[in-house]
């Protein structure tokens, strides 16, 4: 009996050490290097929850959906998705719109990659054309520092904070940008994102934030076909 209790105590201590290791794990806490360079095309946007054109999900999240009457994504094959539609503005003042579908990635694991969410974007500049962006974002640092303490432990928020969450699927932990129509057609490149959360609350999450999507979209060349950009 004494041996069994000793073994159980050891198991509990080992499990606690394991949880602490995961919480402070530098592999899942690392962030992207940031924007690629001076050639980036920068698109800025705000919170789709408080200021976007449309936002919906399964109805199970505490984040409010809008506009009134928008359907929920309740079917079991799509009920982990988030749809956000919001205006974007480039550094030189061009205005456009982005639709972003966010899906938790099946590549999520808490030992090396973190909490991975795949964002699938369609961005359109009216009268000029559209482009696609695919980006895998590691939201574990955001979850650990903001969501867990405020939403689940009831603590006061200790921000503001900035994040560079992009973790793939392209080479060098960049996302993949691909032109679709108009002046963007036949072009392929990379993308990365940066968030600055300036207000986080228990009702609306990251209620106020400024975000930037950095897109590098040179002319399509044979050496940069989509397969070769993917890791």
């Amino acid at each position, binding site marked *: 009996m004494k041996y069994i209790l*000793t*073994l*159980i*105590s*050891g*198991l*509990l*201590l*080992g*499990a*606690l*050490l*394991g*949880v602490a*290791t*995961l919480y402070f794990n530098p592999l899942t806490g690392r962030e992207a290097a940031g924007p690629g360079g001076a050639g980036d095309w920068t698109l800025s946007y705000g919170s789709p929850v408080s200021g976007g*054109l*449309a936002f*919906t999900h399964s109805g199970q999240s505490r984040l409010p959906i809008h*506009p*009134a*009457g928008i*359907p929920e*994504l309740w*079917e079991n*094959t*799509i009920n*982990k*998705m988030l*749809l956000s*539609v919001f*205006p974007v503005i480039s550094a030189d003042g061009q*205005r*456009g*719109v982005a*639709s972003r*579908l966010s899906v938790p*990635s*099946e590549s*999520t*694991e*808490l*030992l*090396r990659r973190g909490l991975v969410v795949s964002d*699938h974007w*369609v961005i*359109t500049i*009216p*009268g*000029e*054309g*559209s482009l*696609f962006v695919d980006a895998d974002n590691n939201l574990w640092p955001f979850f650990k520092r903001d969501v867990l303490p405020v939403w689940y432990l009831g603590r006061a928020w200790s921000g503001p904070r900035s994040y560079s969450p992009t973790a793939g*699927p392209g080479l060098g932990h960049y996302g993949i940008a*691909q032109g*679709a*129509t*108009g002046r963007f057609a036949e072009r392929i490149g990379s993308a990365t994102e940066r968030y600055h959360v300036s207000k986080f609350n228990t009702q609306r999450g990251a209620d106020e934030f400024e975000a930037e999507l950095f897109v590098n979209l040179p002319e399509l060349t044979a050496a940069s076909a*989509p*397969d070769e950009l993917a890791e």
Partner: protein
Amino acid sequence: MKAVFAIGVVIGLAGVLAGAGLFPWIDHPRLPSRTQVVANGGRAEQFVVRLPVDKIATIGTRELGVRANPYPASAVLPEDLQAEPLLLEHFKVRDTEGSVIGVAVRHTTSPGQGAATAWAITVPSRGTLRLAGTEEPAGLDAAIAAVGGVENQSWAGDLRFAMTAEPTEEARGGRVVGGSGEFSGLGGAYSETWLITGVGEDGELRGTIELSTVTYQGL
């Protein structure tokens, strides 16, 4: 006794770390893919949208016709985005058996002559398929009018309208431009057909959108 305690610590630590790395934290439900192999080695798959039940959000400018009626009614495009033709459509997407399998985003604008369309069809368990095509702005309105439809009046009938045709030597048409996940590296062609059975007084369309794709690996 110390050895038993140490073994317990090691097993507990290893168990948590192994679980964190190996447990399938995210596992999207997957329905069978309704695909067919075509003669020259490609893969054919059709995606279906039922109107109006599969509409999620539609926001657009009036130049793009009846499809640009806002949905929900309170959806508004900011004034500074209304100078050029723009239509943003979002739908739930079904397979040919009628099961919802994903969500599609469809953006249309006019970067020159005609209108250009970008589709992103995201199926959580499979990835995103990306399409780019051309269409006639407000072409559906003209087709409905040609079979007796009148603006601001309800209409019922059967209309088959080819919104985007497959590419030909003369026309650019609809192209598959790749994707992510299991759609990564795919090329090919698509056609988009709107089967309209009615229009409500408020301009609400009833019918089906059929997106027929033929994809090839490595294009």
